């Protein structure tokens, strides 16, 4: 079907009424939906995510598609987090593009489309949002970006690997902060490590001296720093200024944090995070990296990688579901196919495995801040406990 014909029939389907049966058994093309941040305050995310997804689509189509049927990407814009736009996009993807598989981004839009995913049995895979609120909201919703609690678990393992016994942790007073502190307690307990202090502060606090003083008084071996930018930088700044020389492991670190903490104070801070790097043992990652670099003249980040990976997951699910026959091009059958074997090739290298909560467990990178730059130190195996 040409683009023009598709648009005409889409218009008819959307504005006049359904002229095609929903999710035909053997479609002419597998149209995958994507609800991304294409405009608004943060269009950068939508740009790199769509690039990643399109590279995967082209790669699969160049190899003959999924058992001979081509993939197509239908992109909707949630305008950098507008939930009404996300819901409109989701409805449009279902009605006009007739996509039973959708890639979403940002936490708010992903939570907003969850009821539709649940009611219409639409398979959703999110590679951008990290909120815990996305967990358990739809049985057809999955995430190939690590959750904050999984990254916290990796950071505790990193502390153990470096031989630390006494852990202090600090976080914002929020659901996010509560959950990472609770997850760290659990993992530390299992690893036989002692949590000697756990401090929290108001999410918009600018003075955290009381909390840092308590961390110092607990004489820890290491400080686990859970806030996001810019408070990650604020914690490091005050920890160092109040005379603590212990190593710090963060979950997020940006240039803004370095600016707040200062280059000298930032040196040596480790960051446990999702990070895409095409190592020699990672053929899928190298293939993606080379194609991205060739097309766009820049290195792909992990957002682009996650959406490249997301398309490959959906393609694999279509393959698996089709083998079983029947009306396989729907969210329920794709979900069923995922649970039959929740392991998939990861663009980060090796395999990623979807856990019961729908979140993929993949290897975590340990980066180190050196002179304001993040340098890859090593990858850690995926684990939740």
């Amino acid at each position, binding site marked *: 079907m040409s683009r023009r014909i598709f648009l005409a029939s889409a218009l008819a389907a*959307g504005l006049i009424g359904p002229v095609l049966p929903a999710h035909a058994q053997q479609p002419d093309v597998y149209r995958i939906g994507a609800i991304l941040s294409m405009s608004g305050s943060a269009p950068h995310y939508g740009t790199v995510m769509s690039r990643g997804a399109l590279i995967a689509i082209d790669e699969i189509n160049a190899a003959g598609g999924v058992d001979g049927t081509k993939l197509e*990407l239908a992109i909707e814009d949630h305008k950098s987090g507008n939930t009404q736009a996300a819901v*409109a996009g989701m*409805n449009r993807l279902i*009605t006009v593009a007739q996509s039973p598989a959708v890639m979403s981004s940002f936490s*708010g839009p992903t939570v907003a489309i969850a009821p539709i995913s649940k009611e219409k049995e639409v398979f959703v895979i999110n590679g951008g949002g990290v909120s815990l609120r996305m967990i358990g909201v739809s049985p057809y919703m999955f995430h190939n970006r690590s959750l904050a609690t999984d990254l916290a678990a990796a950071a505790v393992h990193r502390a153990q690997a470096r031989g630390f016994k006494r852990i202090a942790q600090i976080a914002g007073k929020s659901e996010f902060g509560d959950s990472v502190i609770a997850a760290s307690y659990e993992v530390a307990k299992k690893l036989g490590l002692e949590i000697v202090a756990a401090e929290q502060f108001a*999410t918009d606090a600018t003075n955290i001296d009381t909390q840092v003083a308590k961390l110092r008084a607990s004489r820890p071996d290491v400080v686990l720093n859970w806030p996001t930018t810019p408070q990650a930088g604020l914690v490091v700044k005050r920890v160092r200024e109040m005379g603590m020389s212990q190593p710090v492991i963060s979950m997020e670190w940006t240039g803004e944090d370095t600016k707040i903490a200062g280059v000298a104070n930032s040196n040596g801070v480790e960051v446990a995070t999702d990070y895409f790097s095409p190592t020699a043992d990672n053929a899928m990652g190298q293939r993606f990296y080379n194609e991205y670099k060739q097309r766009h003249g820049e290195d792909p980040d992990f957002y682009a990688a996650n959406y490249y990976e997301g398309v490959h997951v959906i393609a694999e699910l279509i393959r698996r579901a089709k083998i079983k026959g029947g009306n396989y091009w729907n969210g329920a059958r794709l979900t069923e196919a995922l649970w039959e074997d929740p392991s998939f090739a990861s663009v980060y290298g090796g395999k990623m495995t979807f856990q019961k909560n729908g979140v993929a467990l993949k290897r975590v990178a340990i980066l180190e801040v050196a002179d304001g730059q993040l340098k890859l130190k090593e990858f850690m195996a995926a684990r939740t406990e």
Partner: protein
Amino acid sequence: MDYFYHVLVMFCLYAILATSFNVVIGLAGLFALSHAAFYAIGAYTTAILTTAYGVPVFVAMAIGVVLTAAVGAVAALPALRVGGHYLVVVTLALQVIVIDILRNAQGLTGGPDGISGIPRIVLFGQSLSTPGSFLVLAAIVATAIYFALRLLAVSPFGRALRAMRENELAVQSVGKNVVALKLIAFALSAGTAAIAGSLLAHYIAFVSPQSFSIDETILVLAMIILGGTGNLFGAVVGAFILVLLPEILKFLDLPVGTADLMRNAFYGLMLIVILRFRPEGLFPERYRYTLPAEAEQAAGAFQLTPLANFENGAVTLAGENLHKNFGGIVAANGIDIELRAGLVTGLIGPNGAGKTTAFNLLTGFLTPTSGTITLRGRPITDRRPHRIVHSGVARSFQDLKLFRRMSVLDNVLVAFPNQFGDKLHNVYFRPGAVAAQERANIARALEILEFVGLRERASQEADGLSYAEEKLLVIARLLATEAEVLLLDEPLSGLDPNTLARVLPIVRRLAAQGRTVCLIEHNLDVIREVCDVAAYLDGGRVLTIGRPEELMKDPQLLERYIQ
């Protein structure tokens, strides 16, 4: 079809937002930019109450509407003191504060992650979980709100709002309480926006701060401007276009990556083009209208309402030892004046003598620093202007202060006292009585316009009148107040001899029928012809008072003013 239904649901919600916002922006003329904040409070209240406290959906929605209306009324408080750019800043601050609270009151609002799992609305045993099923409810609510607000817009209350938009001082001078008008307009607008917010919360089953940013306020404002400020139907059309247009643009075949940015640019361009050719919006507010035939037929010859207990020459309004200081400037320095029933009193004096200050003090537009004002012996010194009008004292302004973007007829109608339709509860619960009185008032207004010679202009916009006609309309508006005491600030200046010949008898007739008339005038010939008494003011006090011809012989006056 779900996509199509979803677009229509969003149209219904935005139509509610646009019409309710138009009450404040278009009708009341209060440029407030916090509508998305009210939308958010409605949405979050029902979200919190239903998810955290298990409150039934409709109870939670009702609480959200009442709470938001209360917040809206509180938000109106700054509007009582500031307007224009200041009101924009104050309401923008409210918008920012509300969104900051939503982002940071983590325990209550879920912070940036918002609140999910909001229960669906269940009606007659059916959960409204699909766009199609929700559309029915959204359409019914939007239609009901449209007609409810339209009823308000065409009522005397709506007319008073538009008059306030045109001139706040003038609307007080015809007895309207601007404090109440502003509070009610804000509360009503906010409460209605909360209905849209609570519907959205239960439709999407999720709320987050991103959905209620200042961008939403600007979008709804764009709907009003595009459709037509002050026209509720225009706001609905604006909502329809701005909800539908982006969806239609999605069918444009554009390169991936830049497609949405290009669509947004195209969308903006289309708005610019539309407003270039229709600067007042697609459906501008109508200033002209066809008069109801029955009112025209009912209109007879104008007769002033007879006054009870009229005693010719008795003191009605009196100011004693009135002082008014503005910092070091003394505007009134012990004004003593008595106005009497059945007499025309003229105030003369050089510019800056304190004549208009005296009017402002006597009518409550200024509070005296010291001194007392009495009406028929009862003190009225601290009363606000609209209450003084209700007591029977009305005034005009030197600069006329007409309600320019209203019809000539509306300029008169708004001034009638004791209108049932000025009370919101009557508009909705006694519509028959309101309509009947309105018909009678239209007939009476036509009689007044006939009396001053503006009958043929009744259905025209006041802005299109000549200067002389404007002066006549001011008198007509004053007559409509049915006040016992009429204070006219330079009603005759700038009039040609023909018009003067029409107006002077009117003034005399008012006095002859028992009205207490006081006018400020510089034309001494006019003073001689029309006034029974003249008071000469200078330096913020009455220097002399007496019959005009006697005053003209006063050597002090001759020296300081006449020569």
